[in-house]
């Protein structure tokens, strides 16, 4: 990669990346797929999201894609844990 890769994304580029990320993740939500790694391993499971996936990965730096994907899993786990503990305390 050229020196271009060391230049950080501008505000527009950031927002563009976030937008495409959100669209891809919304598609995964519809398929109740949490971990985007599953799509890497078994793309047939998320056929309708594959186009969004490649748009997202093109718009965002690789390190960001990895970070957002991991964060998605963590966020879902956290939400589930909070739900669980709420239920527990409700009892």
């Amino acid at each position: 990669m050229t020196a271009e890769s060391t230049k950080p994304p501008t505000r527009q580029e950031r927002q563009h990346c976030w937008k495409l990320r959100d669209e891809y993740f919304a598609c995964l939500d519809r398929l109740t797929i949490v971990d985007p790694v599953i799509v890497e391993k078994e793309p047939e499971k998320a056929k309708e999201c594959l186009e969004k996936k490649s748009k997202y990965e093109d718009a965002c730096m690789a390190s960001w894609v990895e970070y957002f994907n991991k964060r998605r899993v963590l966020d879902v786990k956290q939400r589930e844990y909070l739900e669980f503990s709420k239920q527990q305390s409700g009892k």
Partner: protein
Amino acid sequence: VFNWKSAALFLGTGAGLLLYFRSEKERVEKLREEKSKETVKAYGKPKIGGPFNLINAENGQRFDSTKELSGKFYMVYFGFTHCPDICPEELDKMAEVVDMAKEKKEPLVPVFITCDPRRDSEEIVKEYVKDFHPDMIGLTGDQDEIRKVAKSFRVYVSSPPSVEEGEDYLVDHSIFFYLMDPDGKFVDCYAKDTTAEEVASSYEKYYKEYYNNQKK
């Protein structure tokens, strides 16, 4: 036996006692107030932050905090320009706080210090901070200098150990705003979950307290 003399004496004593108690009460309250102000200072603030000497991305010149920031309240954020979302969000938040403070005529200088001097050169930092607020000062330096400043602010920074030129990586770092007073002393820090309004109103309190204490 009731007579005018004893009545007058009685009333006189009563009034005297009342006046005495009132002045005593005032004296004690004043003492208490002063004491409470003292105890706030007596507990002391944690030794976070300190003077730093880095490179100003705006002009490539040396930036000595003891000269450039003396007499001003400032707020420091450590981040890196390749940050996916947290840094831009936090810096936008800081810009909001600065504008709110400006409206109240309580100037606050926003300072961004990169934790990623390897990639964040002066040009890159200059470009980056311009995007958030015209007053924002962007600082960089060599690895050692940056490490020293981060250490003094107890900022946890972690880059991947062996990185090659042009490689894409993320830097782990603690996410706080550090509020420093015109004497370069640490005042408070604000975490990611505080809103711009909360930070701004907390700042206002410290600002007023600082200048009120100056008057004394």
